[in-house]
């Protein structure tokens, strides 16, 4: 059966990169004695696929991967078994059974929520002005930026890919942006564009600590989007 696992990556674990997190979970799955399915051949590998890579330095409350298992206990039991063998900073949050015909997590990813907080020492003196300027910048009809890709640089309008932007009570920035294989928008790029276009300066490299809060699938249409958390596509096992 297909299982979708949601986990949090906190604290010092932000320094562990995506590929290492994949390797980490392959071992953790074995330590927890999960009955995972292996591929055939001389070097069998676990059937596991991650939703969206998280960059080094970011923390998250909503990471996902899908696996295939032969058997499963109840969701709560599986979550407990995995959390028993986790490193400090990684916590398994949900274990959901997916419909058999479900496509993997990666192909569903449509959007993600982020929270950006100033690192100590990087907060601008006039924080109010900074935020006001940021929100009014986002209300423009188009937000042109240069996106660097493997193939080179291209001009891109960020506007259609920023779904939500607010300033939270705690003084952090909340952003919901397009995520996935096409038009993957990093939240830093939005901030960076603001710094360059409005503040006329380069964004300090370590100004923000970014946190991913959730990853969404789009169950609506391209025109009328309806986002649901990836875990909502599976069912709790009792």
């Amino acid at each position, binding site marked *: 059966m297909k299982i979708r696992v949601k986990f949090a990556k906190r604290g010092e674990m932000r*320094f562990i990169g995506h590929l290492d997190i994949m390797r*980490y979970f*392959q071992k953790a799955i074995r*330590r927890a004695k999960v009955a995972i399915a292996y591929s055939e051949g001389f070097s*069998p590998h676990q059937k596991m696929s991650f939703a969206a890579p998280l960059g*080094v330095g970011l923390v998250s409350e909503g990471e996902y991967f899908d696996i295939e298992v032969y058997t499963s206990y109840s969701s709560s039991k599986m979550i407990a078994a995995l959390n028993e*063998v986790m*490193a400090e900073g990684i916590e398994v949050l949900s274990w959901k059974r997916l419909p058999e015909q479900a496509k993997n997590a990666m192909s569903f990813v449509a959007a993600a929520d982020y929270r950006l907080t100033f*690192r100590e020492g990087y907060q601008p003196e006039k924080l109010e002005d900074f935020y006001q300027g940021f929100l009014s910048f986002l209300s423009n009809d188009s937000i042109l930026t240069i996106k660097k890709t493997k193939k080179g640089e291209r001009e891109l309008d960020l506007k259609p890919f920023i779904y939500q932007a607010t300033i939270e009570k705690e003084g952090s920035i909340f952003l919901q942006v397009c995520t996935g294989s096409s038009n993957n928008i990093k939240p830093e790029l939005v901030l960076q564009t603001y710094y360059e276009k409005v503040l006329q300066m380069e964004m300090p490299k370590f100004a923000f*600590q970014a946190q991913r809060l959730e990853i969404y699938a789009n169950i609506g249409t391209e025109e009328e989007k309806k986002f649901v958390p990836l875990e909502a596509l599976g069912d709790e096992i009792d």
Partner: protein
Amino acid sequence: MRKLALSDEILLSIEKPARYIGNEINMVKKDPNAVKIRFAICFPDVYEIGMSHLGIQILYDMLNKREDIYCERVYSPWIDLDTIMREQKIPLFAIESQEPIYTFDFIGITLQYEMCYTNILQILDLGKIPLLAKDRKEQDPIVIGGGPCSYNPEPLADFFDLFYIGEGETVYFQLMDAYKENQRQGGTRLTFLERAAEIPGIYVPAFYQISYYPDGTIQKREVIHSPAKEKIQKELVLDLSDTFYPEKPLVPFIKVTQDRVVLEIQRGCIRGCRFCQAGMIYRPVRERSLKFLKNMACKMLYSTGQEEISLSSLSSSDYSKLKELVSFLIEEFQGQGINLSLPSLRIDAFSLDVMSKVQDIRKSSLTFAPEAGSQRLRDVINKGLTKEVILNGATEAFHGGWNRVKLYFMLGLPTETTEDMEEIAVLADEIARVYYAEIPKEQRQGKVQITVSTSFFIPKPFTPFQWAPMCTKEEFLEKARIVNGKIRSMLNQKSITYHWHEADVSVLEGVLARGDRKVSKVILSAYQKGCLYDAWSEYFDEKKWMEAFEENGIDPAFYTTRVREVEEILPWDFIDVGVTKEFLIREWRQAKKEVVTPNCKESCSGCGANVFGGGVCYENKG
């Protein structure tokens, strides 16, 4: 929650921040304030190398079993972080607590290869610990050296407070207790070193004085501080099935060199190759019991979730219960996606059968280590591998579907002639001929691929070749040229690839391996000139090292190419490894006569290691 020693700005600017933050699975967490002794165990190379070392894992586990000790790890910061730490004056810290190591009671540094010596000084320097033992004050940590290179500790004598000679499982607790007792009685650094000097296997270099003849050789070695011992006998674990072994090894987040659990099946080697230091200093051979190994294999795999287990020993085929162990591991774990890796196996019907079960034949290669090209020279080095054995093994393997062969040789062995070198090419060619003669064209998976690698022979202490002169850099390169030329003239030269080791590093390794106390100041100068990570060819700076020799008036040739007489007092003669000097002299003479000595299982050759009262010396000979 602990605070990291490095800021986000630093950690996000350097390569692989995971090297410095710890938090790995099975990391030991203790309250540093609740222990009596803080011990930093150090492998003076980058994290990925250090984390792959079994010895550190054994000692880490062992020391942390005691509630009064917190043993933490420290590795060499990579060049990028090294630069930042110097610029920003950040003291080197231990991974677990992230606290500076200068606050610790002990720094225990493992000495696995000579080319890490400047990294030892990096550790001390970044750690804000005086480089020279004589400059250390009461509050500075005690710096201990151990591991294979401590069998000739003299080139490092100035930097260490004490050396632990031999296997670590035996007297560390005694040493720690002596430290606690010394503190309880309000003792000093000196009174602790005096207590330590009384413990078997512990060597305090400051308690000895060496005088030299005008030609630079040793005249006399004296104890100048009681109660230091004249001779230091190595420490050894007699029963390897009743000792410390890490049931829960650390699991790194990043890929390391040995990314698997390691099962050490035995210690020592029965073979007695005359160039091999490990084969002498770990005598007598001691096996671990099947029961112990099965139990450890299961526990380690379950506690780590690793996908591979590797059997480790100097010559796995000599382990008497190998068949039982291997079939147990295959049966127990094959369905669980766990790979078995079997290095240092002799190629024969059994090993080919096992290998065909555990690895993909098309991707794997066969490895032979004849070490010398001709039978004559193999007899000189006592390598009991014949051409027939190699060709038969290759024939069977080719029929089994393999078509890649790796061959390892040494150049510059004592008595070597041009003919011996050319035989390397001839042997490689013959293996290729076997392939083309035995395997019909339609069954071949392309060409046979033979890789010949040569390293340069470096004489090591406590081997029968410890008196042998080493070649110069120019001689080494000429030898490689001869081999290359001969290979290129062979019929099947297109099937043969040839690699050789760099010669300048080998020369330096030769100096450090057989050096005396005078070499300490050269190491210090080289470090001060910026030498670091000498084992990494991209960072090795021969010019700086040569300047360091010159400025200190030390001629490298005195340690490398000079002919030593057996009467000479060697810098490491004060260490008793069990194997006697008389035996080594006898073997040196037998080598020159091209006479082979039988291995320990065939018959006892009276090397002296039976003095420990155990191991292969007391087993029935078959």
